């Protein structure tokens, strides 16, 4: 019962703040709403018993990336960006794309119950208690089966760091 209530709170919060983020004129306001959306998603991770991901999401996404975003928004002095109109003319194009997308996804969700065998396997999810302690499990698989992927990801981060530094360096 608690799960259901929690899920609806977080889901509603996520969708509302995502919508607000897209529509806000002021970049800082949209950044704040994105932060609320990210926190709501973190809440959903928690509801799905993925605590490690919950805390990684908070530290890395909200504590790291969003701070970077707010930094850049402040460095790009706001008054210049504000006067420029924020919304592109392709409003209609966006609407059509959104409708097509939602139709497709809706069809997929709806059809899953109807057409036997194709839909999503409705399994009984394992009870929360017998799940292995989350962070240990993540650690085992991260450094066990996916060690190579882990190394590649670290190389990727290294490249990104170098790129960012080169990009943003002041030409002496």
């Amino acid at each position, binding site marked *: 019962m608690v799960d259901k209530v929690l899920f609806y709170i977080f889901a509603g919060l996520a*969708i509302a703040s995502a919508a607000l983020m897209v529509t806000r004129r002021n970049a800082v306001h949209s950044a704040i709403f994105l932060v609320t959306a990210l926190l709501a998603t973190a809440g959903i991770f928690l509801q799905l018993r993925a605590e490690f*991901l919950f805390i990684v999401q908070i530290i890395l996404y909200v504590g790291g990336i969003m701070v970077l975003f707010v930094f850049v928004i402040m460095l790009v002095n706001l008054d210049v960006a504000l006067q420029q109109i924020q919304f592109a003319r392709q409003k209609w194009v966006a609407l059509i794309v959104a409708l097509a997308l939602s139709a497709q996804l809706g069809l997929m969700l709806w059809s899953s119950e109807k057409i036997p065998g194709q839909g999503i396997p409705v399994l009984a999810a394992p009870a929360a208690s017998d799940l292995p302690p989350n962070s240990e499990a993540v650690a085992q698989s991260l450094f066990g089966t996916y060690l190579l992927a882990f190394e590649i990801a670290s190389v990727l981060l290294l490249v990104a760091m170098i790129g960012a530094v080169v990009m943003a360096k002041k030409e002496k």
Partner: protein
Amino acid sequence: MLPIGHYLFLSAALFIIGVIGVITRRNVIVILMSIELILNAVNINLVAFSRLYGDVAGQVFALFIIADAAAEAAVGLGIIIAFFRNRETVLADEMDLLKW
């Protein structure tokens, strides 16, 4: 653990809002933010299925996506700063010159 449909619907909604954001907004920073939102929608799906099958691989993959999002944000913002310093603008429309 609610039936999986709820999570799918939620991530679909977030995905759509992200796409709308990318298309309609002119401010490059907000476009980058919408891309972050799309990545987040994907994460929800991954974690939902990993919880459904009880296999933690989904969460590990979500971890990699977050790492990638961090890398992408860092480079993206670097480009924006470099670009803003030259052209004093942050709007996607005005980034039309191939060589500024």
